[in-house]
């Protein structure tokens, strides 16, 4: 019997929770700390791999992703040790993808060759903006010049390089953004993650926004126009969207992230890492302790897991729909129906089709270019049933 997760693959996510400075918009599990004993961290990661491996034996590992935080603060030796241990536990696929998220500072760039030697074969850089004023307003500590230099080094070390930009920034106009995006596309890049700035609760931007002090954010209409222009410009440069915010030359898509969106299994280790693991036919949602100190302590006394919750078939149906509808490929209707036990409400579906929000193409249901910017509304319709 094959498990459902096999349709998405199996990956390993490693969370590195430290950054040099906290960005004001960021609500990721990242902490600023001056002393980090990387030996302790290596030991903890390896212990978590050892603990989880028996439940996941016999699988082929497709991807490893070092995310953060700022994983480019990890010593190459730390990265090497984790990769080596993973390879020991699981056979890997021929095209094993190993990505590391890097901040584009000069110090980080100096470690790139070390990461390559450790086995990393893909770099994802958090460039965020291509003008210094905006980088400052985003609270970033690097400059455009540093970012470009780091990018050139990355290109020389790795076959696959991607970078992230944030748009709909304060005082950004539609033409500012399209010009910046065109410039980004002129760099030798095969993958771009383009995120609309999201104001998250509990961040410095969130507080300022709540007090009415975060000025100059583009209106919803402008942000919507930015999104549409982004789709067109990237597509015309040969990097069509394969997910809501991700664009790639065909073949250069991030395989690791696709495991999430295709609802495969992933083991998450490190503070606050989430996982989805199918064990004896039951899919679990896992979550580790969030605070770095707490997580290390928990690992040392046996397990970093804070939660391991079995997911009902209804919950799996919802998660599969939410994740897969983000992909331009869309949702496999038969797979969804297997989870949910009942077909998608045909009345709702035909309404959405009539509105041009979704289209059905054989076995697949997908959001159209018109539908994707309002995907949450589509999901609400489909999920309320």
């Amino acid at each position, binding site marked *: 019997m094959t498990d459902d997760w096999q349709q998405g693959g199996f990956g390993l996510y490693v969370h590195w929770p430290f950054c040099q400075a906290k960005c004001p918009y960021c609500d990721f599990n990242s902490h600023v700390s001056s002393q980090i004993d990387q030996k302790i961290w290596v030991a903890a990661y390896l212990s978590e791999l050892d603990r989880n491996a028996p439940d996941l034996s016999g699988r082929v590992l497709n991807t490893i992703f070092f995310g953060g935080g700022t994983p480019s603060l990890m010593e190459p030796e730390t990265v090497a040790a984790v990769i080596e241990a993973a390879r020991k536990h699981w056979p890997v696929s021929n095209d094993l993808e190993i990505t590391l998220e890097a901040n584009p500072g000069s110090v980080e760039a100096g470690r790139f060759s070390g990461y390559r030697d450790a086995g990393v074969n893909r770099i994802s850089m958090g460039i965020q903006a291509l003008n210094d004023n905006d980088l400052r307003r985003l609270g970033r500590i690097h400059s455009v010049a540093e970012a470009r230099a780091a990018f050139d080094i990355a290109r020389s070390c790795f076959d696959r390089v991607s970078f992230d930009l944030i748009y709909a920034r304060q005082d950004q106009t539609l033409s500012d953004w399209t010009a910046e995006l065109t410039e980004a596309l002129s760099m030798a890049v095969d993958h771009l993650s383009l995120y609309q700035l999201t104001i998250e609760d509990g961040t410095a931007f969130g507080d300022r926004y709540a007090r009415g002090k975060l000025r100059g954010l583009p209106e919803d209409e402008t942000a919507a126009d930015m999104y549409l222009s982004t789709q067109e410009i990237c597509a015309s440069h040969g990097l069509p969207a394969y997910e809501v915010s991700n664009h790639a030359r065909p073949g250069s898509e991030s395989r690791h992230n696709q495991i999430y969106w295709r609802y495969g299994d992933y083991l998450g280790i490190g503070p606050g890492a989430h996982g989805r693991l199918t064990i004896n036919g039951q899919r679990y949602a896992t979550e580790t302790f969030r605070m770095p100190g707490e997580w290390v302590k928990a690992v040392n006394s046996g397990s970093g897991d804070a939660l391991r919750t079995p997911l009902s078939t209804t919950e799996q149906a919802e998660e599969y729909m939410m994740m897969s509808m983000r992909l331009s490929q869309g949702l496999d209707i038969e797979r969804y129906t297997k989870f949910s036990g009942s077909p998608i409400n045909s009345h709702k579906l035909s309404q959405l089709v009539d509105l041009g929000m979704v289209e059905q193409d054989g076995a697949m249901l997908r959001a159209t270019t018109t539908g994707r910017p*309002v995907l949450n509304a589509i999901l609400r319709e489909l999920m309320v049933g």
Partner: protein
Amino acid sequence: MTDLAHIRNFSIVAHIDHGKSTLADRLIQETGTVKDRDMKEQLLDSMDIERERGITIKANTVRIDYTADNGEHYVLNLIDTPGHVDFAYEVSRSMRAVEGSLLVVDSTQGVEAQTLANVYQAIEADHEIVPVLNKIDLPASDCDRVAEQIEDVIGIDATDAIQVSAKTGQGIHATLESIVTHLPAPKGNLDAPLKAMLVDSWYDAYLGVIVLVRIMDGTLKRGMRVKFMSNNTLHHVDRVGVFRPEMEMVDSLGPGEIGFLTASIKQVRDTRVGDTITNDRNGTEVALDGFKPAQPVVFCGLFPVDSSEFEDLRDAIDKLALNDASFSFEMETSAALGFGFRCGFLGLLHLEVIRDRIEREYDIELITTAPSVVYHIFMRDGAMTELHNPADMPDMTLVDHLEEPRIKATILVPDEYLGDVLKLCQDRRGIQEDLTYAGTRAMVVYDLPLNEVVFDFYDRLKSVTKGYASFDYHMTGYREDNLVKMSILVNDEPVDALSMMVHRDRAEMRGRAMCEKLKDLIPRHMFKIPIQAAIGGKVIARETLSALRKDVTAKCYGGDATRKRKLLDKQKAGKKKMRQFGKVDIPQEAFISALKMDG
């Protein structure tokens, strides 16, 4: 049983917040009726909603034992009456059970609209009236000015007005003495057959229906059989008692006394307020003049948000109706809202109280549709029907004309706000009847259509006068006017629950306001939505709610699956609270909020 000369029955009349409940508390406390340790504030307000809103809804009664300075023991019966206009009928019938009133006026404020409305009822009931100037502990207290105002505006002698602080207790003793010396003792004949007035009744889960009575003649005894004269029903009296304010059983009640009886009566509807109770045989021949039952004046639909709760709603309404004969209901079906009830209320506060109680005590979330008054429709064939629901409006070609209820409103307002008040009344189609001054305050009397007042007039009045105006009204009758039914169409589909009756001249304005409001209240959808107001087939106002352009989570990775599912679950729950009209979801608040006018 107490002899007549040692009984005093009275009520307290006051404008809201002038200290009626606090004064009642002090009188109860001073006489030791309730031990200090059992004392809680606003003793007589027993419902949660009464305590929370600081209003009295039901009349409440307490019997107080008082030894006067002359050494004699007296029994004082206080009936605390509601202050709000919606419950004016309760005030009037309670007044008939007592001989005197304390007229409480806040000495920092002076006479207000409800002071007037209530005191006129006391005068009408032939009460002896003792003016009480309250809140003298406050620096702003000005007893001379307020006493003068009482004499000028109300026309009663205020030279002996008692100066009181219900807060500190100052003047409470003087008030008790004044009750004994100034208020008349009740009259009655102990040897005559029983003649008791049914003052009020309510349902108690343990005892069944409790009947509040005032004995006029004769004796009411436990174990006797009585007759309710309005319908000739016979009952066996199983309990007789008094309120202190907790129930206390006694063997009998004699002339002049106020207390209660229980007689295994199952429904409040089986008792008629104002009825006369007498012996089952050889009873009195002459019944007391009955009260006219309170008529609902405001109607609206109540629908469960979750349509599977319809039966629970029916249950809740049945139970509430057991205790509130003034509230009417019948089943209603709406194309959009499903099954619910069309309910009639004494006014908007009454509506809110009932709605709150259903939501709180029975835990049912409700959609409330536009409140409407009762119109008289005169058909071409000469027939007249009452219209309780605009959705039921017959074809206009069959209608000869329509009449709407009118009220007489009295408003007291400091003169700096007078202009705003006049404008408000004018905007609401009012006709000025009187304008006089009492000191620096103006008293305006307007003839207004009830439908312009029912919804948000009082809120608007409070806001334009920064809370300094007081307001009271009573119904005066029906008058013909140019009234039409305005329908609201959302995405080209009529929404029956939003249709309303309006004056033709105000239709465009109201239609525009409704469409603008709805545009803000309805969330954006994936398509654009026209919102229109129409009379018959003619569109008189139109807005367009533009389509949702962007609603997508920018970044969603492995760790976000859980978070995102929770977020969507929350949104799903939010969507359940909306109602679908064709393809459009309308949030439940929209039905009431859309009607609030800003001008």
